């Protein structure tokens, strides 16, 4: 088997206030993968990332990066990881260019090489014009990109991003996606956490869902989406109606006088539905997915996990 980029084995974290944030999780991320780590707020994503890059001390378990143990081979392991944390953690009074060159220096890279690399990444991320501004004066989206540039300055093989697109506008988000896709294509393994499931669906090949400190799903994006057994569509009607139409095999609700929400099982086709609409003289002006497909699955899973936790607690 090929060396995994990241391998986590039975990782447990109990914080000082004796809160158990991670319960014996295990996870492998393949070399070259684009991997999504999803989970609701407080699930333990940032804790996991914190342990990988040694900002959080683990209680138990083993973590290795390209088979280098983060405890015993910490120097090699750290050279291989680049991390973009969830919260801004650079010195707000320093200039972007200094922040990058300094970070490179911590990795033993001399300032002439570092300055060239800093220029390259600042240009790629659209920050070159801002290189001499106080970084506290950058906008939120620029600060995020600065942290991405900083994580790349020592050219890591594994890039970990904790909600890199939080608070980033749509256009910029797309350009960040392109940037990350390019980096991934050139051979860097990427792990990201996000609350935009559309982002995970369009970028990532493999996925793990973590909830209450446990991994509740770990599979490929494709096979996960296959599990989706029904989808909800929203139909806008040309006319207003007051009685919800009934169609066999579909569950329909009238969400507005001229809007229907229809749950369509995988086994049924849209054609059948449209035929029924025509029969009942309902004319459709537009239709869309109610939620992102992944979102539907995600919500279902997290809710199921919550119920099983409740049962266990009782």
């Amino acid at each position, binding site marked *: 088997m090929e060396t995994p980029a990241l391998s986590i084995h039975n990782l447990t974290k109990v914080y000082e206030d004796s809160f158990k944030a991670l319960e014996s999780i295990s996870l492998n991320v393949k070399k070259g993968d684009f991997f999504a780590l999803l989970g609701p707020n407080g699930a333990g994503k940032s804790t996991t990332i914190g342990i990988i890059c040694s900002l959080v001390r683990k209680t138990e378990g083993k973590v290795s990066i390209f088979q280098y143990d983060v405890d015993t081979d910490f120097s090699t392991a750290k050279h291989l*990881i680049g991390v973009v944390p969830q*919260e801004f953690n*650079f010195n707000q009074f320093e200039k972007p260019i200094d922040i990058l060159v300094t970070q490179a220096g*911590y990795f033993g890279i001399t300032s002439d090489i570092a300055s060239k690399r800093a220029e390259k990444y600042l240009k790629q991320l659209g920050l070159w014009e801002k290189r001499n501004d106080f970084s506290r004066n950058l906008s939120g989206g620029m600060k995020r990109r600065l942290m991405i540039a900083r994580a790349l300055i020592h050219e890591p093989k594994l890039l970990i991003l904790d909600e890199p697109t939080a608070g980033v506008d749509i256009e910029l988000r797309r350009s960040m996606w392109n940037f990350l896709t390019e980096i991934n294509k050139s051979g860097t393994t990427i792990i990201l956490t996000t609350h935009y499931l559309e982002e995970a669906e369009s970028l990532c090949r493999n996925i793990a869902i973590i909830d209450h400190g446990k991994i509740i799903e770990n599979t490929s994006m494709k096979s996960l989406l296959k599990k989706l057994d029904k989808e909800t569509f929203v139909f806008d009607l040309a006319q207003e109606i007051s009685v919800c139409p009934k169609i066999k095999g579909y569950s329909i609700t009238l969400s507005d006088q001229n809007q229907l929400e229809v749950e369509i099982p995988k086994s049924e086709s849209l054609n059948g539905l449209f035929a029924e609409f025509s029969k009942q003289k309902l004319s459709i002006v537009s239709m869309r997915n109610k939620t992102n497909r992944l979102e539907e699955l995600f919500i279902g899973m997290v809710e199921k996990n919550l119920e099983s936790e409740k049962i266990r607690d009782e």
Partner: protein
Amino acid sequence: MNNHEKWVAFYTILRREIRRFMRIWPQTLLPPVITMVLYFVIFGQLIGSRIGTMSGLPYIQFVAPGLIMMSVITNSYSNVVSSFFGSKFQKNIEELLVSPVPNWIILLGYIAGGMCRGLGVGILVTLLALYFTSFGIHSIPVTIAIVLMTSLMFSIAGLINAIFASNFDDISIIPTFVLTPLTYLGGVFYSINLLGDFWRDVSMFNPILYMVNAFRFGISGITDINIIWSFSMVGLASVVLFLFALHLLEKGSRLRS
């Protein structure tokens, strides 16, 4: 990391530290200079001329070494304590914590930064002193050695304070309630021979007394105490504090959750 990379990392930390105190020079370099001008004018010229001599020296020449030492101590200490705590507060200490830099390099980098500020201010204050009075140097090795060791020791102490501090009050408590009184009572302004037996014995527990006297010996050849004690004490304290600071960094206490 190989040795060259370690050197680059050390140099990077030092460069960043120097850049920090130069950037905010009105907070770091200017205040000690102003305070010292006031000391020289008031204690040296105005009051000093009425005091006459102390331990056989004109008063201004007696206080000058003490005042230089005082600025070295406070500036070494406060540079490291505010820089390290600041980076903990803004979380940019994480930039170092995720990097492969060994803890002893982090420690040396911050210490070197503190010493640069401490010694830099020390030089400024010396130049000021020479404007108000004149003095030669009795022993160059003693003078340089004691000032370097003192600066080293207080830089390490500042780092330890910063590791334990969890808010801005915590970084001003030690300077205000420990460092300042010890300095004022540490033989900067008077010879302990003026004190009664009891207070002289109490003063012997004040480490700053030893440093100030050794430095005054280096400059003028006059001291209240044996300077061998000074060097042993500062040397030992520096080693102990260094090992303790390193231990704290290795444990990651208050830095890694």
